[in-house]
Each structure stands twice: as structure tokens, then as C-alpha cells.
């Protein structure tokens, strides 16, 4: 089965650092040979930089209302135009990206982290597995956004709410993937051997399981990231995401609907930024899968 080449068993016997260095290097090299990967990584770097550097690139409070400057079409003064409150859309898009990407990053880290721990436990303890998998079934069939909406609506709109609810909803798919991989890995002889000589479970986990599941996790992470960015935008758009005092791409679109005929640019730019981010993440995920697991890649 697919312990991908990047983490083939013989490599796992080395020290921890060595494992990760070898793995990362070869993956990175192969990734750089893939044009789609290069383009998507470049796009993500640009998007991240413009978000991080937003205060420098577009200084000033993006939410500052300026009634005199309403509905100015895109031009040299306002690259992306202004909205119904006279706010500069370029500024809003750059600053909004900070929220969107931050939420995406944090949700990915939290949900993947929990998924890895639970997945490892699930893969090793039969009883836990039965219960967890039924929970995952339940969560996966149900539309995550409805749960997140309910949760976010109940807890009140805030960054914490969005991160919490999206993290919970996005654990399920990753958990299933990690658990499947752990089930495969635990049957490997070296792990059987390590177990039989009494290597503590925790050490077993960090030294053998984690490196072996790192490839599918990496692939999954890009898709979770994209789902989280989309989820945040969706929740904020319907008004149960981050509060109206904060700024995100989804938030920026909420009011836009009412002015779509006067000022289509209010709709265009935040959405374009959102789509570009999701596209880059999806393409990165696809090419990571190509690089890490040719067997899986054929299936898409």
C-alpha cells in the first residue's frame, strides 16, 4: 500500500531530523519541477506577502468611512474603486486577506493537529475507533457549514467563533485520512518490531507514525486550508462569521449585493482575491498529490 516513496520505511529508521530533512528536500525538489506547483506557490507567496505587508502597502484604516468618495470606479487613485461608504476597496482587499488567511492557517493547524492525534489513537485502539468513526460519519454527511452556522450564530460573531466552529467541522475528513494511513503503517514490520521490544507508544507515534502520515497530511492540509478560507468567507458573508467591525473578504461582500448594479467592482475584487487563494491552494494540493502519491494522483 501507499507509504509513499518520500517516506519509504528504510528512511524511517534514521534519526528524526534526518528523516524530515530527506523527506522535505526530495519533496521540495520534485515540487519545484512541477510548473503547476511553482505557479500556485508563487501565487500564495504573493497573496500572503500582500496580506502581511498590507499596513505598508495600503496604510490607513481600511474601514474608515468617507461619504464623499462613494462608488468611485477603479482607477489610479483607488485601484479597486470605492464602496457604498466610500471605503477604498484595494485597502479592504489587502487588509481583508489578513483575516482570511489567518483564519485559514489557524483552522488548518488546529483541525489537522487534532485529526492527527485522534487518528493515531483511532488507528491503535479498536474501541475508540468504532465510536470515533461513527461520529465522523455523522459529521461528514451533514453539511459542515450548517453546523458552523449554528455554532457561530449561537456563540456570537467573532474570530474565535469562526476558528472554533470551522476547526470542529473540518476535523472529520482529515481524521478519516490520517486514521486510514495509520492503519496501514501500524501493520509494517518495523512498527510491529518496535512495539514488541516495548517502544513507548508516544515515541512510536513521533518517530514512526508521524513521518509516515506526513505525505497525506501535507496534501490534505492544502485542501483543508482552502476549505477553511472558503468557510470563513461563507460564514462572514451570511453574517455569522467574524463581526462587522472586523474585515475579511467574505465580510466585504455582504453589503456588496445591494449595490451590484451601481458598483460591480465591490463584488468583483474581494471575490477574485478569494477565488485566487482557493485556486492556488487547490492546485498546490493537486500537485502535492502528484508528487507524493502517484497512485492517488491517477484517480483524479
Amino acid at each position, binding site marked *: 500500500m501507499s507509504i509513499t516513496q518520500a517516506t519509504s520505511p528504510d528512511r524511517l529508521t534514521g534519526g528524526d531530523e534526518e528523516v524530515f530533512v530527506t523527506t522535505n528536500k526530495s519533496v521540495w525538489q520534485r515540487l519545484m519541477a512541477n510548473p503547476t506547483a511553482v505557479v500556485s506557490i508563487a501565487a500564495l507567496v504573493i497573496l500572503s506577502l500582500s496580506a502581511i505587508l498590507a499596513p505598508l502597502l495600503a496604510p490607513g484604516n481600511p474601514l474608515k468611512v468617507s461619504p464623499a468618495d462613494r462608488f468611485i470606479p477603479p482607477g489610479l487613485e483607488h485601484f479597486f474603486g470605492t464602496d457604498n461608504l466610500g471605503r477604498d476597496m484595494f485597502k479592504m482587499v489587502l487588509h481583508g486577506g489578513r483575516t482570511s488567511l489567518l483564519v485559514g492557517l489557524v483552522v488548518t493547524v488546529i483541525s489537522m493537529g487534532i485529526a492527527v492525534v485522534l487518528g493515531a489513537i483511532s488507528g491503535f485502539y479498536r474501541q475508540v475507533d468504532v465510536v470515533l468513526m461513527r461520529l465522523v460519519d*455523522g459529521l*461528514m454527511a*451533514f453539511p459542515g457549514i*450548517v*453546523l458552523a*452556522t*449554528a455554532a457561530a450564530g449561537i456563540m456570537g460573531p467573532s474570530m474565535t467563533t469562526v476558528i472554533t466552529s470551522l476547526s470542529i467541522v473540518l476535523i472529520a475528513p482529515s481524521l478519516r485520512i490520517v486514521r486510514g494511513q495509520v492503519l496501514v503503517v501500524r501493520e509494517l514490520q518495523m512498527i510491529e518490531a518496535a512495539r514488541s521490544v516495548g517502544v513507548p507508544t508516544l515515541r512510536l507515534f513521533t518517530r514512526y507514525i508521524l513521518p509516515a502520515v506526513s505525505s497525506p497530511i501535507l496534501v490534505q492540509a492544502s485542501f483543508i486550508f482552502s476549505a477553511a478560507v472558503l468557510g470563513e468567507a461563507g460564514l462572514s458573508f451570511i453574517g455569522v462569521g467574524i463581526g462587522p467591525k472586523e474585515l475579511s473578504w467574505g465580510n466585504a461582500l455582504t453589503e456588496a449585493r445591494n449595490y451590484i448594479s451601481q458598483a460591480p467592482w465591490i*463584488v468583483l475584487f474581494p471575490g477574485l482575491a478569494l*477565488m485566487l487563494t482557493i485556486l492556488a491552494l487547490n492546485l498546490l494540493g493537486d500537485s502535492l498529490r502528484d508528487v507524493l502519491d502517484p497512485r492517488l494522483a491517477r*484517480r483524479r
Partner: protein
Amino acid sequence: MLRYLFKRFLLILPTIFVPLILVFLLLRLSPGDPAGMMLGDQATPEQIAALRTQLGLDQPVWMQFVLWLKGILTLDLGNSIFFREPVMQIIPRYATVTILLTAVALVLAVVIGVTLGLVSAMNRNKPIDRGVVTTAVLGISLPEFWFALLLIFVFAVTLRWFPVAGYNPPDAGIIAFGATIFLPALALGVRQSALMTRMMRSSMLDVLNEPYITTARAQGLPETTVLGRYAMRTAAMPVVTVAGLSAGYMLGGAVAIEIIFALPGLGRMLVEAVGRRDYPLVEGGVLTISLVLAVLNLLIDLIYAILDPRIRYQ
């Protein structure tokens, strides 16, 4: 066959109850008291306590859940706190819209996805295939609610082919209904159709390499039969599986779409009910979505069993 369906049914049970329990707990454990909200700022603590008793909110959480489950069995989901009307009467009004919207979107997604996937697979590595593959990647990355806004701008505001928002029930005539449901369904279905295109393409490419396709050709069957019956029969199965998941996503995506197009659906109702702490209505809404999905998934299992005789014997 019946045994198989019974087993599938047992597996579907958690998909009904896990979301319910989650939402039930969330509602009860979160701050915000529906009794207080209903009565407003001027209410005395006594009045609030009385209403809480009346609504059963003074009971322990597990007791409330047991009582609510009992209610489901007797088809009594309680009264909406906001509408002061039985939940069982409110839900169908909204659910119909959402189910119709999702159904139309699902049909659109399947038709678009299967067609493009087939065309793509038939023309592997030709320009048309590359075009479809690229479009599919773009489609997967397209946020529904943003696409909905773009559709409104192009087809409703600029071209004026469709109304900007609003809803006509099917009773109003198929054209009036279609005019209000088409854009929302298209917006809702676009990501899923892109996913299905990719699924159909890869599945078809796999199947075309199967020896039984060569056999069918070697028997002299015309290519239309080979593709339409022999290849489609097996290639469609992953798409059938995906359709269930797609419907789930769509019921979720429907929330934003209903708000954008001002459709009186379940998703919009839920967001409003959550905001009003209308516990019975939220729970009823979540239950409805769970049940719709459960029925749909059973239906898909049934189609699967018809398509693939092998699983009937497992």
C-alpha cells in the same frame, strides 16, 4: 437486498443523530436565554422563570433531550418561540424551497458533470480535454456565493433574463418557478458539477482501460453501446456515490444562496432562528436536513445496489 438496505440504514442512524446532539448541546450550553429574549428588557425575573418552566428550559439538559426525542416520535417538535406556532407546521413551508433548490442544483450538477466528464475522457489530452480540466479546477475554486453575485450581475442586472431575487413556488407555473430557481440552482451546483466532472473523467478513463470494454468492442457492439451502456454502467458508480456528498454540501451552501436570492428556504430560516435563540425551530431545521440527507443516502444506496449486483451479496 433487504438485509443490505437494513445494514445501510443502521449506518445512516449516526448521521442523523450526531449533528442533532451537537446542535442540541451547543444551544443549551451557550449564553443567551430564549425566555429572556422573548420577553424583552422589561420582564421581571419571575416572568422569565415562569416562561422557562413553560418551555421546559428549567429541566436538566439530558432530560430536555429525552423529552425532545419523545416529541419526535409523536411528531411533535414543540412550538417555535418566535412564531408561536408548531415547528411541524413551519418547517415544511421552508423545507420545500430548499429541497427543490437542492434537487434542481443536483440535477444540473450531475448533467453538467457527467457530460463534461465524458466529453473530456473521450478526447483525452486533446485541447477540449485540457479546456474541461482547467475549467473544472476553476469551478472547484469558485465560492458559491460570489458566483451567485456574478450571475446576478450578468443575467439579472445586465441582461435582465432573470429576476434579481425572489421566489415563485411551482404552483405559479413551471416558467415562473424556473425563472426564480435557475440562477440559484446554477450558483449552488457549479462547484459540485466541477467535482463531478473530474470524478466522471477519471472514472471513465479507468473504465475504458478495462478488458470488458475491449470484449464489448470485439463482440462488434457499436461504440455508442460500448460507451453508453458498458462503460457508463461502471463509470457512473463513483459519481452516484459523490452525489450523496454533493447534496450534503449543497444543503449547506443553500444558506448563503437563499439569503442572496431572497428565497424563503430552510437555510435562511435557520440563520434567523439561531439569531433569535429559537431552540425548537433550530433543532427542527437541523433534524429536517439530517432526515433529508438520510433519505437521499438510502436512495443512493438503493441505486448503487441496482447498478452493482456484487454488493447485494456481500
